[in-house]
């Protein structure tokens, strides 16, 4: 069991897990944004076992990000229930890591690359505790893994788009979660960055992490996804294996 912070953030489960529960269970879920009459997705029923890698496919606006945000606790459900690792949404923060889309970050904020990665350790520190040697060592290891160590002291806005995307992956890794929600991890990056991120994601899958990836990109390599789900017309459906 991971150490629980003295002043942990809101509604963390306190390290008590149901190890045999599936990673995700959606039961008649309806999702939508406040003020909009039409739901983005409705009637979503889905169960994802631990250690599986799932792709959410669909056009822009189909609801891929909306689905991930609802699992991450960023969007309240209109109806239905989502169980995350046996807990309600937002009750097991340290075991759920979320990789947002590149555009959701304020890259102009005065922050170094090293400090940005360290934010991935905050969930294990809780309120008032600052990152110590252990967290810095772990952050440096993630920077090494994503080949960003030489850029650690740069400001985050001094990185290229691909490097920033790798930075987001590094932070997601430092979070150390069992369930990773990845929103367009390959969006607008070049081949070299894509290859590096792909290698890291394949390693996570090999470690037995559960990966749910929103993408319209199928260049993840053979065997990366265990199942593909298509989103369209407000519905989610399983794609037949190729």
């Amino acid at each position, binding site marked *: 069991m991971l150490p629980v912070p003295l002043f942990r953030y809101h509604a963390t489960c306190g390290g008590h897990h149901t190890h045999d529960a599936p990673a995700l269970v959606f039961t008649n879920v309806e999702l939508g944004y406040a003020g909009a009459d039409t739901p983005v997705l409705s009637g979503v029923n889905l169960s994802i076992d631990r250690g599986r890698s799932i792709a959410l496919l669909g056009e822009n606006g189909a609801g891929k990000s909306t689905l991930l945000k609802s699992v991450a606790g960023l969007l309240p459900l209109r109806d239905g229930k989502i169980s995350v690792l046996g807990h309600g949404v937002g009750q097991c923060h340290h075991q759920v890591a979320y990789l947002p889309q590149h555009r959701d970050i304020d890259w102009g904020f005065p922050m170094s690359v090293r400090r940005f990665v360290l934010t991935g350790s*905050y969930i294990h520190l809780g309120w008032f505790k600052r990152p110590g040697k252990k967290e810095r060592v772990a952050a440096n290891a993630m920077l090494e893994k994503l080949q960003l160590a030489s850029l650690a002291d740069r400001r985050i806005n001094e990185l290229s788009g691909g490097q920033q995307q790798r930075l987001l992956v590094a*932070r997601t890794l430092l979070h150390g979660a069992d369930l990773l929600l990845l929103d367009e991890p390959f969006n607008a990056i070049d081949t070299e960055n894509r290859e590096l991120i792909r290698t890291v994601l394949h390693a996570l899958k090999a470690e037995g992490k559960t990966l749910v990836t929103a993408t319209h990109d199928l260049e993840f390599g053979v065997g990366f996804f265990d199942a593909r789900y298509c989103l369209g017309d407000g519905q989610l459906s399983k794609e037949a294996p190729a």
Partner: protein
Amino acid sequence: MQRALLAGLLAGVNCAVIGVYIVQRRMSFFGGALSHTVLPGMVFAFLRGVDVFWGALGAALATALGVGWLSRRREVGEDAAIGVVLSGMFALGVLMMSQVNSFRDFNALLFGSVLGVAAQDLWLAGAVTILVLLAVALINKELELASVDPEYACVIGARPNRMRTLLLVITALSVVTAVRVVGALMATALLITPAAAALVWARSVRGAMLSAVIVSMLSVFVGLLVSYHYDWSSGAAIVLAATACFGVSWLVRVIQR
């Protein structure tokens, strides 16, 4: 004069520290609004014979919480919420002032009067400064995260909305201390200008805060010195000194690039 300098430095320190977050999070309009919306509270306190600090504090907190509440609801955008609250509160202040025969009584409230700083004001400014510095020291990492990536802050349960409300309340406290020194109409300058000058160069929040504090203290010192020797309005002199610092900082950065 010593009392004026100390009050100016205290207000300058807490405004500069919190101003870094206000400027970086593009909440300068809110900072500007706060310095205007304290007016009815100050006038009310003045007319009741109560220390204007408490009137300003009440109005500033009401504004901070009101804007926070209005903008969390999705019917009104944040800038519109600030605009509505600003103009309404300022109009209320002007209406209350018009009930009194002479506007001259309110000169110190509008334009500041460092010479009128009492010992009690110093204690209050000192207490607010300690509170602001303590709050920032305790939750700086969460404030930083909520600023750079509010979604991730939400995912880990660090409650970015509450961080934001706390930031609004701390800002309200800082502006109230600045109002005593430079007046209601120019208090925004102490909040925004030193932070903006620092952020032109900053590579970290901590560095920006330190630079903003130096700019702020320099502005207060130079402004009061000029005011003393040339009989200028102290508030205007301080604000102009801060504006000059920003101008130099920006110009050097532009030339360097």
